[in-house]
């Protein structure tokens, strides 16, 4: 029994230790590189986790030692980037306070959660995993690469300065309004946030004033340290906001304190698209596409048209799953429904790849098929915006992490017994009895 448990772990460790060395060439497919024109018969060569060449078959030389994957009739495009998701059972702030910048999603994610496997099945290779929206500030988010993973460390993105890539989750409007110590009104919500940012400005001033003398530094404050990262533009605010006036409040606060912000959900985004486009603090909007309006007051006017309207107003537009609100497995529905509602096709495809990479400031590494970028790509059975198309293979950094031809992998695309099980949890009921339930996301 022990051996049976240890073997797969050992195997995974072994695989991880031997990074891909021989190049892999994807040939014969229609290639949608996102940056640049579609290529009817394209070749993509990847090596050591990076893309080394992309172009028409006639102009790309396939190395002699390359493994060739012939994909006639298929489509190859970059792995999808999801700018807002809750896969991996993340937890953030608790109910003790409305602003908790010290809390990290890092300390909660289950790297083996079934939701992560379903995201790979949907072609998602990079994802912003966020805590919830029930707080003004619910904690530090994580930008993950969906590599094969045993632990959370296997999923992290290390930035050149050594830090772990991620944003800061904020929210306004109704979700973060609760009983004290949470705010009861919109104006109170903004006041609480301003107060904290002013404290952070003062904290930063104290640090700057010591002019490098470590002995004079103020006591460490994890929350204020994180806020200073926002003030310094080292971390981006990923801000839940729905109603048109709430969106304008986000922009007002961002401009007051100079933090960089991505506007998330933006149900009313089409009403204030010009204002979002005009603000230098707004990197762009991460838009949700939902099958019907409503479900909450703020989403009464949510529309398929939002992505297109904001794009035409000059806002950088990405889409997100908000998984489990929508399902990672059909993330490509979002750009498809946006195109249905008038969005430019190229912009819509970028909105689940390169534009989202920009919203996460990861566009130097992911989001398009371009020499030098991470070898994150998908093999699709047909056009990415057709309902009849399936993701057939998902590759992250030159490794195949999901393959529809493998029945065990396929289960995470179709669903079925075992596809959503994350282990059994015992729940005690008030009579002291218990029920055993499979938990899922």
């Amino acid at each position, binding site marked *: 029994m022990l051996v049976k448990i240890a073997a797969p772990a050992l195997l995974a460790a072994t695989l991880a230790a031997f990074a891909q060395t021989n190049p892999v060439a994807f040939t014969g497919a229609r290639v949608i590189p996102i940056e640049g024109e579609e290529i009817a018969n394209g070749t993509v060569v990847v090596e050591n986790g990076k893309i080394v060449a992309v172009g028409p078959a006639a102009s790309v030389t396939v190395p002699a030692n390359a493994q060739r994957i012939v994909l006639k009739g298929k489509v190859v495009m970059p792995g999808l980037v999801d700018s807002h998701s809750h896969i991996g059972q993340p937890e953030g702030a608790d109910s003790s306070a409305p602003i908790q910048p010290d809390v990290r999603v890092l300390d909660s994610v289950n790297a083996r959660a079934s939701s992560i496997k379903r995201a790979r099945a949907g072609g998602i290779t990079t994802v912003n995993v966020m805590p919830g929206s029930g707080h003004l500030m619910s904690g530090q988010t994580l930008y993950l690469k969906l590599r094969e993973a045993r632990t959370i460390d296997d999923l992290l993105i290390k930035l050149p300065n050594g830090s772990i890539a991620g944003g800061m989750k904020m929210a306004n409007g109704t979700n973060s309004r609760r009983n004290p110590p949470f705010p009861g009104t919109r104006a109170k919500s903004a006041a609480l946030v301003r107060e904290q940012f002013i404290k952070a400005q003062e904290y930063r001033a104290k640090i700057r004033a010591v002019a490098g003398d470590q002995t004079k530094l103020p006591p460490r404050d994890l929350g204020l340290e994180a806020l200073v990262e926002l003030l310094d533009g080292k971390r981006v605010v990923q801000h839940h906001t729905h109603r048109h006036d709430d969106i304008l409040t986000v922009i007002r606060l961002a401009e007051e304190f100079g933090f960089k912000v991505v506007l998330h959900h933006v149900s009313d985004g*089409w009403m204030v698209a010009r204002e979002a486009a005009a603000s230098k603090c707004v990197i762009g909007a991460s838009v949700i596409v*939902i*099958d*019907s*309006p*409503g*479900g*909450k*007051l703020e*989403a*009464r*006017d*949510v*529309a398929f*048209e939002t992505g297109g309207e904001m794009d035409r107003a000059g806002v950088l537009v990405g889409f997100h799953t908000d998984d*489990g*609100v929508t*399902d990672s497995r*059909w993330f490509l*529905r979002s750009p*498809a*429904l946006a*195109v*249905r509602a008038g969005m430019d096709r190229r912009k819509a495809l970028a909105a689940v790849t390169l534009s989202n990479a920009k919203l996460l400031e990861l566009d130097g590494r992911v989001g398009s098929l371009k020499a030098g970028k991470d070898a994150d790509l998908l093999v699709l059975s047909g056009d990415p*915006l*057709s*309902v*009849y*198309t*399936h993701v057939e293979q998902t590759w992250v950094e030159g490794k195949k992490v999901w393959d529809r031809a493998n029945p065990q992998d396929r289960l995470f*695309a*179709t*669903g*079925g*017994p*075992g*596809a*959503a*099980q994350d282990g059994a949890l015992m729940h005690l*009921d*008030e*009579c002291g009895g218990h029920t055993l*339930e*499979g938990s*899922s*996301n």
Partner: protein
Amino acid sequence: MRHAILALACCAPIGAQTLAVKGETVYTMAGPAIRDGVVIMRDGKIERVGTAVSTPIPSGMRTLTAKVVTPGLVDAHSTVGLSGILNQNHDQDQLETSAPMQPELRAIDAYNAKDALVGWLRSFGVTTIHTGHGPGSLISGQTMVVKTLGGNVEQDTVRAAAMVAASLGEDGRASGGKAPGTRAKMIAMLRGEFIKAKEYAAKAAKAEKGKEPARDLRLEALGKVLAGELPLLVTVNKANDILAALRLGTEFGLKLVLDGAAEAPLVLEEIKASGYPVFLHPTMARPSGDSGALSLETASKLKAAGIPFAIPSGFEGYVPKTRVILFEAALAAANGLTPEQALEAITIEPARLLGIANRVGSIESGKDGDLALYDGDPLEYTTHSIGVVIGGRLVSEARR
């Protein structure tokens, strides 16, 4: 931009009127699709359907043109009109939790024809919905069938009482230590109540005039279930609970519809043998709780097993506040059903299973003039709904 569409009124005067619709492809759902088809409607009903050659359009008749024409879509199970768009206490009427079994609650006393979601569904071609009390208690109440005209409940109703909605498994469990707290208790309570209703009906039948038992709305409603007048719509997902539902149906000789049925693939033979149909969970329903094992491929498995089924929009507690059957059928078509089979599951099949196929679900002469017009394959993501006709009248021109 969308407000104009949602606010679309449908109150043109009813009177003698005609309308013709031309389609490059007309899916009648009563035989093979017609290439270059024509549908002629008069006074709310379909008068003629055929090829353009065999069915000339009288000169001067208003004519709409579309790439693809289907029957108006029929949503086999929704709660729209009761579970309002805002999702606030004041507009949520699909579930009343003061008692675990309330079959006397009528859907017509709650249906809001003006709810924006009714118009939302209509704009995608959904013209008939089976809606009413939702899942969430052992017996939540009655359902109804209504056209998505957005007029008022009296005008729009097709059938005032259609089924009685019940839930087993997690959806049937009462909270706060109240009964039913377990699966076995749910069945015990249902059996007890059906036995009471049986005795009540027998007493009423035998009683001399003037000596009938005092009226009991709850037992009267259950009596209609026992008599097969109102089928029992059981929302049930786990295989063990599906078997419990079948056991209950057999014991009391009920007309039963299995709703949700996430684990149906595990008990296909038993379902098939029971003869009961399935209103499947929406294809894109979230896998969680009792429905953790749901699959995109269940529709195709039901089809292969010969079990009658429809693909409904179901109930949503949050966002999206309603699903759209056109989208749910599309995913089923991408996962094992043919496009025609997927269309059947949102047109003629639900019409049959709801007992309203004499009026809706296919394009045949004599049926209601309910049509959906599209500018391409209706199931494709990037196709638009371009027109909706109910009762021979164009009620939506939104390009959606």
